[in-house]
C-alpha cells in the first residue's frame, strides 16, 4: 500500500468517525431538550402548590420518558455498540441528567433510591456493558448525586410549603446515601468533586431538621406519617 493509499484509508476512517460524532451530537441535543422538559415538569414540586401534585407530575414525567426511550433507541443505532467508550463523552452528560431525573421520579414516588437496574429499565438500556448500550456506574452515581442536591432544595421548600415531616425523611435518606458513597474509593475525578458537594447537601438538610427540631415542628408529623 502506498503512502497516499494509506492516508486515504485513514482519512476514510476519520471521516466516518466525524460523521458518527455529528450524528451523535444531533441526537444528544434532542435528548437534552427532552431532559429539560422532564425537569420542567418535576420542578413544580418545589412550588407551594406542587406538593399535592407530586403523583400526577411523576406520572407525566414517566410519560415523557417514553420519548426519551425512543430517542435513546435512535442513539444506539448511530455507532457500533462495542465502541461505547469511544463516544462516551457525547452522551455522558445527558445520561447523568436522565439518571438524575429517573432517580428523582422514583424518590418522589416511593422515597427509595433508584437502583442502576431501574434506571436502565426506565431508559431502556443495559446495566452490563457486555449486553449492549449500558449505564456506566460512574454516570449512575453522578446522577444520584445530582438528585441529592435537588433533595436538599426540596427539604427547604417543603418547610416553606408547610410540610415538616418530609425534610426529616429526606435527611434519613441522604444520610444513607452518604454512607454508601463513603464506601467508594473515589479518585480525584469529577465524581469525587460532586461527592464533596454531597456533604454540603447533607449539611443543608441537617440544618433544616435542626430548625424544625428546636421549634418542636415536624416531630409529631413524622411519627404520624412514617408508620
Amino acid at each position, binding site marked *: 500500500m502506498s503512502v497516499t493509499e494509506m492516508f486515504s484509508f485513514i482519512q476514510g476512517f476519520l471521516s466516518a468517525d466525524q460523521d458518527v460524532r455529528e450524528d451523535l451530537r444531533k441526537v444528544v441535543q434532542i435528548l437534552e431538550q427532552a431532559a429539560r422538559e422532564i425537569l420542567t415538569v418535576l420542578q413544580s414540586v418545589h412550588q407551594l402548590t406542587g406538593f399535592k401534585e407530586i403523583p400526577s407530575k411523576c406520572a407525566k414525567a414517566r410519560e415523557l420518558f417514553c420519548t426519551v426511550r425512543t430517542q435513546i433507541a435512535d442513539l444506539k443505532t448511530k455507532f457500533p455498540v462495542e*465502541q461505547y*467508550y469511544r463516544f462516551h463523552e457525547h452522551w455522558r452528560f445527558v445520561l447523568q441528567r436522565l439518571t438524575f431525573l429517573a432517580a428523582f421520579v422514583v424518590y418522589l414516588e416511593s422515597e427509595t433510591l433508584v437502583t442502576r437496574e431501574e434506571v436502565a429499565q426506565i431508559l431502556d438500556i443495559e446495566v452490563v456493558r457486555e449486553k449492549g448500550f449500558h449505564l456506566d456506574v460512574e454516570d449512575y452515581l453522578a446522577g444520584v448525586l445530582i438528585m441529592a442536591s435537588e433533595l436538599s432544595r426540596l427539604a427547604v421548600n417543603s418547610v416553606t410549603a408547610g410540610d415538616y415531616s418530609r425534610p426529616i425523611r429526606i435527611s434519613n435518606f441522604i444520610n444513607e446515601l452518604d454512607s454508601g458513597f463513603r464506601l467508594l474509593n473515589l479518585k480525584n475525578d469529577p465524581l469525587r468533586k460532586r461527592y464533596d458537594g454531597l456533604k454540603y447537601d447533607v449539611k443543608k438538610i441537617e440544618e433544616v431538621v435542626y430548625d424544625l427540631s428546636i421549634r418542636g415542628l415536624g416531630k409529631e408529623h413524622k411519627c404520624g406519617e412514617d408508620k
Partner: protein
Amino acid sequence: NMTADQSSSSIAAAFKVFQQELDTKHDKYERLVKISRDITIESKRSIFLLQQDVEEVLKEAAVKLDGVTQKIGLIAEELRGEDIHQFHRAFTPGIQEYVEAISFLHYIRHRSLISLEEINAKLVFMKAEKSSVEVVPADVQVLTFQVTPSDYLLGVADLTGELMRMCISSVANGDIDTPFQLSQFLRQIHDGFSYIGNTGPYEVSKKLHTLRQSLAKVEDACYALHVRGSEIPKHMLADVFSSRTALIDPEESMV
C-alpha cells in the same frame, strides 16, 4: 428505624458492588499505565539503536521491539473482554511510541510506510489457557490488539522526526542517496497529513508544525547536497563518496 436499617443495608450492599467495580477498573487502569511506560521506554531505546544504521544493531533493535510486542500482549490480556476505548488514555503514549519505532524499523528495511494492518498483524498473541496445567496445544487462545488509526497517525507523525534525524546523519556520513529518498518519502507523508488537515485528532494538528520543520530540514539537506554536488562534474561525484557509500549496506541485504 427497622426499615431504614433494611434499606440501608440494601444501599450499602449496592455500593459495595460499586466499590468493587470502581476499584477493579482503577487498578486495571494503573497496571496499563505502567505497561505503557515500559513500552515507551523500550520503544525509545529501540529507536535510538535504529538511528545507528548498522546491521547488528538493527537486529538488536528488532529483538528489543519483539519484547515490546510481548508487552503489548500484556495490554491485550488486560483488555480481554473490555472495551478498549475505556482504557485508551492509559496506554496511548506507549502505543504511539511503538508505532514510531516499528514504522522506523520497517522504513529502514523496506523503505516504505508500514500500514496499520501490517502493524496490527504483528499484534496477535497465542496464550495457553491457565485452566489446564498440561500444555495442550488445543487449549491455545488467540488474543489480538488493534492500534487505533489515531494512534497510528500520531506515531507516524513522530516518525518523521526520526526520519529527519536519519537524513541529517546520512548527509553527515556522505550517503547521498538516502537523503533524496527520505525527502521523497517525507514529502509524501507531509502531503498525506496536509490532506487529512484538521479532520484528524487535535494532537495531530499540534504535531503538524514539527512535521513541517522536519520536512524543511530534509529539503534543505537535499538542497545543500545538490548545490555542493553542482560544483564538480557528475562523474566525479561517485568517486568522492565512494569510500563512504560502500559502508552503507544496500537494501537487499536485509529484509
